């Protein structure tokens, strides 16, 4: 059972809401988010971020999907937060959550996530997308990269510590899956499993934002104090 909570009570780990706000990403907080977790409580260690899509209908609204993730699913809380189609983030769990499950192990910059243990070692983000070709909106992709960059900076992680669910569990997962048309400026969102690395992947976009690269225009959201914090 873990002791790391992302509501500000665990000294070296700033609160998720503050971190995401610092990225300039619109945010909502679900009632009780500070104490919500899976049955094991807080994170055992915080070594990475797992990116998902919800595989929910494109017609489903933000609130109903968020309710389902936070309190409605039999295994809720599902992930720590939702990313809506308009780029709004909804945080509903500061402790460990259910989202990644069986898979791994996976080597991160600060250590190895053990076999089947990503739920208690990684933040989970569920992004609203039907997973069968729905295009990803520009606002959503801006938020996805920005929030991951901010969390990596705040929690002493590297951009490469963002992994796709299909990387963690390749035999049973495909997410995140791209849209029928790639989103302008986010070439990895085309009609296939998102490439995460290799220069044109999601992690590369996050890395550019963390370094304040010239193509992002976002240089004011990184937590420089936390970025230099030792592991």
């Amino acid at each position, binding site marked *: *059972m*873990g002791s790391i909570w992302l509501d500000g009570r665990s000294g070296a780990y700033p609160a998720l809401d503050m971190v995401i706000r610092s990225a300039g990403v619109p945010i909502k907080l679900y009632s*009780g988010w500070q*104490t*919500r*977790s*899976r*049955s*094991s*409580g*807080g994170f*055992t260690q915080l070594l990475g971020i797992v990116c*998902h*899509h*919800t*595989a*929910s*209908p494109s017609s*489903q609204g933000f609130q*109903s*999907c968020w309710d*389902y*993730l936070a*309190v*409605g*699913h039999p*295994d809720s809380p*599902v992930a720590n937060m939702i990313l809506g189609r308009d780029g709004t983030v909804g945080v509903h769990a500061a*402790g*460990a959550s*259910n*989202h*990644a*499950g*069986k898979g791994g192990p996976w080597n991160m910059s600060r250590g190895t996530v*053990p076999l*089947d*243990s*990503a*739920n*208690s070692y990684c933040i989970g983000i*569920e992004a609203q997308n*039907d*997973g*069968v070709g729905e295009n990803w909106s520009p606002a959503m992709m801006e938020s996805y990269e920005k929030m991951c960059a901010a969390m990596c900076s705040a929690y002493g992680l590297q951009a490469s510590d963002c992994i796709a669910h299909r990387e963690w*569990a390749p035999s*049973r*997962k495909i*997410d995140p899956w791209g849209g029928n048309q790639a989103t302008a400026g986010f070439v990895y969102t085309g009609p296939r499993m998102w490439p995460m690395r290799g220069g044109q992947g999601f992690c590369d976009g996050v890395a550019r934002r963390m370094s304040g690269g010239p193509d992002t225009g976002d240089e004011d959201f990184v937590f420089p104090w936390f970025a230099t914090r030792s592991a």
Partner: protein
Amino acid sequence: MPGPIGDMTPEDAFDPDDIDPEATARIFMNIRHNLAPEGHPNYDELSAEEKALYAFVIILLLKRLREEGTG
């Protein structure tokens, strides 16, 4: 079309980490609260003594399940 969170399976909820009695008590209490809010407070509305009692019950249940080899 997939349903809500169409790709979430029981395998995604698996994790070998130990059960936290307080977290588990909170989940149980809040499920009941969400299903029937009237007369069923959520966990954070309980007194410290009530919270401790619920956590103690969870510990006893887990002990029993482990003795039976099902926990």
